[in-house]
C-alpha cells in the first residue's frame, strides 16, 4: 500500500516519528501499568457520586416521585432537563465516528474510541431519567409492544414519547455494536501481550480475532455500513427528542425550528464533553502524540460552528415569536428572558452564544487551558438551555392562577450527581481496560499522516516548488484570476 500523498501544509496527526510497534506500546501502556494515584482518587470520587445517585434513586422509587418538587404546572423539571442534556452529550461520539468517517476526516481516529465510549455511558445516564420519572419503574416494560394479557393492549405508536423510546434504544444498541466491533482488533493486540488472568480476560473480550485478510475486509465493510446507518440515526435521535416538545401545544415548544436546533445543540454539547475528557485524558495517559493540538483545534472549530448555529436558532425563535403576532408565544419568550428564571436564560446566552465566539482566534483554539475552560462553560450553558426550555416555559401557563415556581429537592440533585458518578466511573474503568485511542486505525493512517511520513510524502511537491516548476503554474493561475 503506497500512502496517498497528503498536502504539506496539512498538520501531521501522529507526532513523535512513531513506528508501528511504538504505537502499540504507547496505546496499550495505560491498560498495562498500575493505576496512578490521580486515577484512584478520581475513581473514589466518582464512586461516591454514584453511591449518592443510587441512594437517591432508591429513595425515589421507595417513596415515589413526590420526593421531587414537580407540581401541577411544572410536570417536567430536572429529570427531563438532565435526560436531554445527557442524550445531547451522547451525540458527539457517533458524529465523530460515523459522519467524520463518511467525510474521510482522518483526525477522527485520534478521538473516536473515547468519544464513542462517552456516548454509550451518556446514553445510559440519559435513559435512567425517563425510566424513573414514570413513577412505577416496576411496570416500565409496559412501554414495549408485546403480546400481553391486558387485551392485548398496545402502546400508542403515534406518540413521540414512544418514538423516543425506540430512538434511544436503537441508538444505544447501534453505538454499542459499532464501538465494540472497532475494539475487537485492539483487544486482540492487548491479548497477545498479556499473561495470566489478564490473558484470560482479553481472550474473552477479543472474540478470537486473528487479523486475517478476509476478516479485515469484512471488518471494514461492516464499519462503513454501520457508519452509514449511524449517520441518519444520530440526526434522527435528537430530532425525535425535540418532537417530545415540538409536537405539544405549549407556547415556546410548538416550533418547527426545534429538530435542527436540537441536533446542533447536541453536537455542540457533545463536543464540549469530548474536549473536557480529552484534555485530561491525553495529559494523564501521555497521549499528546496521538491527540494533538491539531485535534483539539479541529474540535474547537466544530464547537464554534455549532455554537453559532445554536445562537442563530435562539435569535430566530425570538424573531418568529415577535413576527407571529401570537401573544402567548410572545409572552413565552418574554418570560424566558425577563421572567423569574431570567438568570438561566442569561446563563444559556452567555455560555452558548457569546463564549464560543472566542474560538475565532487561533491562539485560543490551540490553547489547552482555554479549551478546557470553554468546554466547561458550554456544558453548563447547554444544561441551562434545556432548563430554560422545560422548567421556565412550564412555570408560566396560559392561566396566571396556575403559575408556579420550581426548585429541585435534594433527591433530584442527588440523582443528577449520581449520573455524573455513573458516567465518570464507567469512563475511568474504560481507560483501564480498553485502549483509549484506536490502535489499528492509528497504524492505518500512520503512513499518510505520521509526521515523519507527512514530510516525506510532501517532498515531491516541495521539490517542485523549490525548482520553480510548481510555483510558476500557481503564479500564472493567480494572475488569471486578477
Amino acid at each position, binding site marked *: 500500500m503506497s500512502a496517498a500523498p497528503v498536502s504539506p501544509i496539512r498538520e501531521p496527526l501522529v507526532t513523535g516519528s512513531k513506528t508501528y510497534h511504538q504505537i502499540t506500546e504507547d496505546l496499550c501502556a495505560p491498560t498495562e501499568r498500575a493505576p496512578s494515584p490521580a486515577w484512584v482518587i478520581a475513581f473514589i470520587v466518582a464512586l461516591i457520586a454514584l453511591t449518592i445517585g443510587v441512594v437517591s434513586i432508591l429513595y425515589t422509587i421507595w417513596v415515589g416521585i413526590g420526593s421531587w418538587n414537580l407540581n401541577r404546572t411544572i410536570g417536567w423539571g430536572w429529570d427531563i432537563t438532565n435526560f436531554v442534556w445527557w442524550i445531547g452529550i451522547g451525540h458527539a461520539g457517533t458524529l465523530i465516528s460515523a459522519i467524520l468517517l463518511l467525510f474521510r476526516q482522518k483526525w477522527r481516529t485520534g478521538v473516536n474510541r473515547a468519544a464513542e465510549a462517552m456516548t454509550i455511558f451518556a446514553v445510559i445516564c440519559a435513559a435512567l431519567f425517563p425510566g424513573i420519572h414514570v413513577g412505577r419503574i416496576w411496570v416500565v416494560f409496559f412501554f414495549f409492544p408485546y403480546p400481553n394479557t391486558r387485551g392485548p393492549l398496545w402502546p400508542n405508536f403515534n406518540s413521540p414519547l414512544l418514538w423516543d423510546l425506540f430512538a434511544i434504544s436503537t441508538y444505544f444498541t447501534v453505538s454499542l455494536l459499532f464501538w465494540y466491533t472497532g475494539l475487537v482488533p485492539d483487544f486482540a493486540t492487548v491479548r497477545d501481550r498479556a499473561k495470566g488472568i489478564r490473558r484470560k480476560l482479553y481472550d474473552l473480550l477479543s472474540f478470537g480475532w486473528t487479523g486475517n*485478510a478476509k476478516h479485515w475486509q469484512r471488518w471494514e465493510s461492516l464499519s462503513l455500513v454501520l457508519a452509514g446507518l449511524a449517520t441518519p440515526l444520530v440526526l434522527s435521535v435528537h430530532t425525535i427528542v425535540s418532537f417530545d416538545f415540538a409536537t405539544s401545544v405549549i407556547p415556546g415548544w410548538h416550533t418547527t425550528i426545534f429538530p435542527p436546533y436540537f441536533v446542533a445543540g447536541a453536537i455542540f454539547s457533545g463536543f464540549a464533553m469530548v474536549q473536557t475528557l480529552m484534555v485530561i485524558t491525553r495529559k494523564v495517559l501521555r497521549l499528546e502524540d496521538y491527540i494533538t493540538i491539531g485535534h483539539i483545534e479541529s474540535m474547537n472549530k466544530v464547537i464554534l460552528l455549532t455554537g453559532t448555529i445554536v445562537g442563530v436558532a435562539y435569535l430566530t425563535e425570538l424573531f418568529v415569536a415577535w413576527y407571529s403576532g401570537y401573544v402567548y408565544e410572545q409572552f413565552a419568550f418574554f418570560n424566558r428572558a425577563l421572567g423569574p428564571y431570567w438568570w438561566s436564560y442569561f446563563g444559556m446566552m452567555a455560555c452558548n452564544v457569546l463564549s464560543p465566539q472566542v474560538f475565532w482566534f487561533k491562539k485560543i483554539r490551540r490553547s489547552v487551558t482555554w479549551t478546557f475552560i470553554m468546554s466547561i462553560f458550554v456544558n453548563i450553558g447547554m444544561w441551562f438551555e434545556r432548563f430554560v426550555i422545560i422548567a421556565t416555559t412550564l412555570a408560566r401557563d396560559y392561566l396566571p392562577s396556575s403559575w408556579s415556581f420550581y426548585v429541585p429537592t435534594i433527591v433530584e440533585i442527588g440523582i443528577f450527581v449520581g449520573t455524573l458518578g455513573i458516567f465518570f466511573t464507567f469512563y475511568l474503568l474504560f481507560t483501564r481496560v480498553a485502549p483509549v485511542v484506536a490502535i489499528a486505525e492509528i497504524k492505518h493512517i500512520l503512513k499518510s499522516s505520521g509526521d515523519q511520513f507527512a514530510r516525506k510524502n510532501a517532498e515531491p511537491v516541495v521539490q517542485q516548488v523549490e525548482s520553480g516548476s510548481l510555483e510558476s503554474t500557481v503564479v500564472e493561475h493567480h494572475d488569471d484570476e486578477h
Partner: protein
Amino acid sequence: MGYRNKKIVYGLYDDEEILMDAVRQANRSEMSILDVFSPFPVHGIDDLLDLSESRLHIGGFIYGMIGTLTAVLGMSWIHAMDWPNIFGGKPYWAIASFIPITFELTVLFAAIGMTVTFYIINGQGPGIKNPIVHPRISDDKFCIAFDADEASEEEISKYRSFFDQTGASFIETKKL
C-alpha cells in the same frame, strides 16, 4: 474460521509494502497462499489474494428490509386491525406517524443482523479462541502463511527460500 490443527509455514514482514511485494512475487511463481495476517487492514491486498468483495452489506440491506416490514406491518396491524383506536382525530392507519419507528427498526435490524452475521461467518464470538499464528501480528508484523499439511520436505524448503528471498524477518513451520 480458525485454522485449528493445521500445519503451516509462515514468514513475518516488517512493513506492509514488503508484504505486498512478497504477495505479488508469490502470485508470479504461482504459489498458493493460505492466508495473510496483518495488524490493520492493508488496502489492495484483497485484489492480490483474489478475495471477492464482501457480501456483508447485501445482508445488511436484507436485514434492514425485514426491520422495515416488521415495523410497518406490525404497527398497521396493531392500530388498524387488532385494536383500532382514535388518537387526536387521526385515522386508524396514521401511516405518517409510523415513519420514525419504521426508520429506527430498519437501522436496528440492519445493524444487529450484520454484526451477528459478521461474527458468525468469521467464526468469532465471546469465549471463542482461535489459534494465533504469532503474537506480533496484532502489533507490527505482517504475515504470509502457506499450507504445509500435506507438503513434502521439498515444498517446505521452497516456501522457506521464498520467505528468504522476499525479505521476511522471521520464518517458522508450526502446527496451529
